């Protein structure tokens, strides 16, 4: 009996001693709410925002949808592969398509990361270098402005989220309001507080700069038809003397000239998987088959090739990989089960070619993960300046910037691509639009160019574009459903 009593007492003691053992904290990771707390945390946090630029889905859900939706590309790859993105090629996509859903969610994921930095790093409890603090906040605001601009351009009115844990009952905020409340203020703040490109050390290349903020402002003012501001910021970038055109067009996106003189903003990437610094954007578009560099989505459109050939434009060779072409010693064989040539009623409609702008030299499949996607090139800035100046009735200055781009494209061959001389506003407008088509092909810009200039119906109508509908992507159906309609569907979907 005595032993029973002791046993009992021991057990009671043991029970009470054990109560707190049910606290089992997270191992190997921080719990949200405890970060950032220090200068190094702040740097980690802002790097985490840049990380979003390499997330596969941040590129329109992983696939070059904006290029596929333009007249510059078709779906590509094997006819049987990636059928889920085929609807975008002929504008039959619906609100349940996965790519749009992934793009939308990944943009908000990026915005949340930026909101963490913008809201927490200014907190005085974090002891850190004040210049660095200001720069980090400005970097995060640049990136938030960029992500929101993608979101608004893609989806129109969307929920406005400026905190890391938003309420669950948000509705839509108009695109105009988001531009005025967030995107422009963020980018103006960034333009004020970020260093110029030359003010960063070589190790920091790739971080947001004053020039990048201003160039993005110019792009967005153009998008919204504010030509005065577009001109102002494009010219400020030009006047900053931070940038110039690469002498050789192909170098504007080549591996050797990453973070080069023409680069205004680009995404650094290494030829490894994502978690070691890779960016699958290039792999998605890379050569399918031989050499195996990717999936081959986003195939340069045959009419674009014919047009460039007709113009004798040497930029075609630098933009397109043809079957049989040898690049850096590697011959392109392409995919065995993809037709080399597709005909309809005897006419060629498509040939197996690949986007050379994402080519990355080296021996293996991983190489295509190393391509640095250029978000803004100086050539784009020059063409934006030209466009804004033309719209502001300054054709002479516009021609100067337009022809600067053409001259580089000519590559010293005086017999081709003569200077543009028209000063009629409409004719010059078309010349600039065309130049953007030649110069900036497959860079995700053409579709927005056609939408913002109201030319989409004319150019893309034959491909299936429906006016007053396809200017925007549909809001993901799950978002409409979960919000029980507070977040309403875009018109036409």
């Amino acid at each position, binding site marked *: 009996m005595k032993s029973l009593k002791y046993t009992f007492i021991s057990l009671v003691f043991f029970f009470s001693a054990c109560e707190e*053992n049910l606290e089992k904290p997270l191992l190997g*990771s921080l719990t949200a709410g405890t970060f950032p707390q220090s200068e190094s945390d702040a740097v980690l946090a802002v790097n985490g925002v840049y990380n979003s630029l390499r997330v596969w889905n941040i590129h329109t859900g992983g696939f070059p949808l904006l290029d596929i939706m333009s007249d510059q590309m078709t779906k590509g790859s094997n006819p049987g592969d990636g059928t889920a993105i085929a609807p975008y090629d002929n504008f039959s996509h619906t609100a349940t398509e996965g790519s749009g859903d992934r793009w939308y969610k990944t943009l908000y994921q990026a915005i949340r990361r930026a909101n963490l930095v913008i809201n927490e790093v200014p907190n005085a409890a974090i002891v850190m270098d004040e210049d660095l603090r200001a720069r980090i906040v400005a970097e995060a605001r640049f990136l938030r402005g960029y992500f929101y601009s993608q979101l608004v351009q893609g989806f129109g009115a969307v929920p406005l989220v400026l905190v890391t844990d938003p309420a669950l009952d948000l509705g839509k905020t108009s695109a105009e309001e988001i531009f005025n409340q967030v995107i422009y203020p963020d980018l103006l703040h960034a333009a004020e507080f970020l260093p110029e490109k030359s003010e960063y050390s070589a190790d920091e290349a790739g971080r947001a700069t004053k020039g990048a903020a201003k160039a993005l402002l110019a792009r967005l003012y153009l998008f919204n038809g504010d030509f005065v501001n577009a001109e102002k910021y494009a010219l400020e970038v030009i006047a900053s003397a931070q940038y110039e055109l690469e002498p050789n067009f192909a170098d504007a996106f080549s591996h050797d000239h990453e973070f080069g003189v023409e680069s205004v903003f680009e995404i650094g*990437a290494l030829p490894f998987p994502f978690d070691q610094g890779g960016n699958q954007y290039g792999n998605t578009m890379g050569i399918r088959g031989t050499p195996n560099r990717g999936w081959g989505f986003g195939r340069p459109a045959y009419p674009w090739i014919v047009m460039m050939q007709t113009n004798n434009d040497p930029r075609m060779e630098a933009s397109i990989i043809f079957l049989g072409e040898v690049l850096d010693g590697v011959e392109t064989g392409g995919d065995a089960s993809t037709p080399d040539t597709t005909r309809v009623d005897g006419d060629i409609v498509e040939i197996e070619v690949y986007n050379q702008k994402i080519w990355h030299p080296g021996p293996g499949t991983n190489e295509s993960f190393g391509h640095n996607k250029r978000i803004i090139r100086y050539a784009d800035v020059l063409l934006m300046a030209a466009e804004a100046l033309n719209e502001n009735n300054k054709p002479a200055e516009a021609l100067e910037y337009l022809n600067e781009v053409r001259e580089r494209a000519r590559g010293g061959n005086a017999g081709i691509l003569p200077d543009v001389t028209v000063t009629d506003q409409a004719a010059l407008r078309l010349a600039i639009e065309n130049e953007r088509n030649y110069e900036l092909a497959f860079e995700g810009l053409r579709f927005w160019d056609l939408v913002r200039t109201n030319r989409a119906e004319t150019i893309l109508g034959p491909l299936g574009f429906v006016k007053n509908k396809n200017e925007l992507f549909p809001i993901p159906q799950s978002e409409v459903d*979960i919000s029980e309609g507070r977040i309403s569907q875009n018109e036409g979907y």
Partner: protein
Amino acid sequence: MRHFTKLFIVIIAMIFTSSYVDAQDFKISGTILDSETREPLIGATIIEKGTTNGTVTDLDGNYQLMVSGSEAVLVFTYVGYKSREIRVNNQSVINTSLDIDFSELEEVVVVGYGSVRKSDLTGAVASVKGEDLLKVPNASPVQALQGKVSGLQVLSPSGDPGATPVVRLRGVTTLNNNNPLFVVDGVIIEKGVSDNSGSGTPLDFLNANDIESVEVLKDASATAIFGSRGSNGVIIITTKRGVQGAPRINFSAELGWQRVANKIDLMNGQEFGQYVNDIDLTEPGPYNVDQLPTTDWQDEIYNDYAPIQSYSFSFGGANEKVDYYFGLGYFGQEGILPKSGLERITTKINTNYEIAKNLDIGLSLSVALKEKQNSPGVVNTALRAWPIDAPYTTDPVTGEQIFAEVQGGGNALAAIEYTNNVNKSIESVGNVFAQYAFLDGFSVKSSLQFSLGMSKNKSFTPEYFVAPLQQNETSDISQEYNDNSFILWENTISYVKEIGVHRFNTVAGYTTQRVKSEFLSGSAQNLLRDGESFWYIDASDGDPLLQDVSNNASHSAIQSYLFRFNYSLMDKYLFTATYRRDGSSKFGPNNRYGVFPSLALGWNLSEEAFFPDVSFLGNMKLRASWGIVGNDKISYDAQFPQIDQDFGAVFGQNEQYVSGAAYATGGNPNLKWEETVQFDVGLNFDMFSGRLVSEMDYYVKTTNDILVNLEPIGYSGLGAFQQIVYNVASVENKGFEFSLNWQDDIGNFNYKLGFLGSTVKNTVLELGQDIGVDSLIVAGDLGNGQQVSRTAVGQPIGFFYGYDAIGVFQTQQQVDATPHLFGQTVGDLIYRDANEDGILDGDDRIMLGNSIPGLVYGFNTEVGYKGFRVGLDFQGQTGVDIYNGKQAVRFSLLNYETRFLDHWTPSNPSNENFRAVSGGTNYTPSNYFIEDGSYLRLRTVTLSYNFQQAVLNSVGAQSLKVYVRGTNLFTKTQFSGYSPDLGASSALDGVIDKGVYPITKVYSVGLNLTF
């Protein structure tokens, strides 16, 4: 941990030092015989009534026992016989005989934290004898339970040696982990002992030869004592212990040979060439069909008659103070795919010592060593490979035979050659306990239970080049080490007592448990040499950019109070109540504790006076139970929103990866337990003097607050495909289960017939409406982004969803006049405009099928004549659909199944199979790819011979059995894949055949010898 161990030692020491009085002073001996045959009963139990003092009979039925006095009463019991009580009355020799109890009602059934008499059982519990587990040649004893227990479904998604079977008891209870809880000799086993992923079926450390019995606990009355872990049912395994008498030595051996059970019908070279010509591509083709060669890729990769062997040795015995059992086993199985073999050594020690009067200590220990070659995933490679491509070619430079480029997914033989992936593990499961009986009917028991597992995985791929799409640019090595521990301390006090017409069986206890898992993995590239002696990270080129290391851990704890009260009045009226309170670290402080009660009533109708006294009726019992059981099978970190440090960026003119941190997984601090409320009514009866024994149950199980991963609203910024665990869903399962067993003798023949079956209807009642999450779960990814399964309110979990294909377009006019998808043309499938709005779009997709079978059944028969015995086990299921995913995925031009031979062409206007294509809209998810998964399988057929006693006596053996057996010899099914016996590891996916390691036919011979 420190005070934990210290206290345990203190308590053991206190128990050991307790005093007792020795009162055994009266010696009785005798012989116990079967009342009819007059054969001695070996291992019959003799207990002095009201004490734990007892012994068992030896090989000749003899016993000796010291009793407390001449007035003592001896209770003679033997499994399957009616017990008998005899007062000693100064006799020193008591010989007696026992009558067979055909109803076997006095059998004891192991339930959680104790055992109860079968006649007193109020819950739905099925028992399977250990010998039944030996019928299926497989590393996992669970496999053999298939078709043995009504309501239990054991599916084999893969024929890979050591593959994890999918086990489902009474339907699909939850949207996440549906594995039942396993309890081996009292040790709770929640997942594979050395397996970090938490998915494995956890009994690989057990040799089926060491198993005495398996009990399957089905209703809440039986499972609620396991509280938060019991809702998927509980399977209790009891291993063998030494029995009284001379040491018994057993040796058994089995050799088997495996072949692929059936091949998939694929096109041969000429058929493929013709089909490709019909696609009318510019390249490849057109082929001159008559000249095309054929490679049968299935023949190339599958070995015929891959051996499987199993040897077991055991040694056991007991006397009054000690019982002991040692087991040693070897299991070796080569897969039908090269490099997929499994080897395992198991050891088992079960021993008990009575170290003082009323004080027992014991140990139950299993240790297993395993080595598994992880098979190269080449089944799909072989199914997709072009049959016109040969596996080998001649190197134009060296003239050597080399692997050829094979289109359609690669050269499977090369993939096998270059795969080197081995997993080695050591698993140890044990239970050390002390038990002390005191007063009259009380006992306390304290046990320390553990399961410890360590595994290491090594994978090496050399540098090689077969084709641009099949090459490895640099050799690489990866290593992973896992370390898992589970420690549980259990303290119970029990009271078992019969007072007049009242019988009590009560247990109360406290348990506390800790679980920890940790892994460390590393990888590197560019090894100095390809040889196995260089398969270490230090042999790599040391390039830090090519090296990777990773390490993390998880941990959790549970503490519980439990109680069970079992009461029987006049053997007629039975009552059971259980209660358990669990606290788990997996949930935040607000919802940390859960309470799981159950109640049950039983009524032995046949004991009533009014029960008709007709000779063909035997015993009859009605049962009813209700209870709440929980489920906490979620990750320990589901409550925490995380920030991880692996979200880096690349900066610098000389590009460098720079660390970054950001939100990783989301968390939900308000998580709580899943609760399953289960109601069960049952009937047990036997008839015709026990020849017919039957049990049936009807149950309704509703699981509420199901922990489910759902995507929250997109703007919350979790990212694409990111989900959070919520307590939102509710699922109902209801069904009927029955088993019928008949056994009889006709002269020298004896025979048995058994039939069992279960129905289940699964319905999702709620799914996260109104809490800001996506209440539709889309799953079942085929691997190409197409998702074919959904879970939604009002439907079963994981039903198939897509278009309803109703024919093939024959003319362009028909295409123009019918709603169709963009690009559809003549020869394509017609999808039904289900909502009849004149437009064919996503809204026309409908529910197409269900992969939770409506009826699962098994039947078996055994016929014996003298020493010969033939046994057949059948099992099957109906009312189940399977999505033929391997046929529905076309990344590029791949080989086709022969179904497509009869495709639409202008001259062959098939209305069933679409025109020849390499991909495209005809591969949109539709019921064209759904097949009936019903089947009836002859699981095993065994012919055995038991040698006569006379022969055995001459060599001193007790028994010798030899047998031949066939496993999976015959399956009747419409399903075109390797086996319809597929399970979904996640119920949300439904059952999709994505190309599995095939199930095998096995022919085996074996012997079992006992001395």
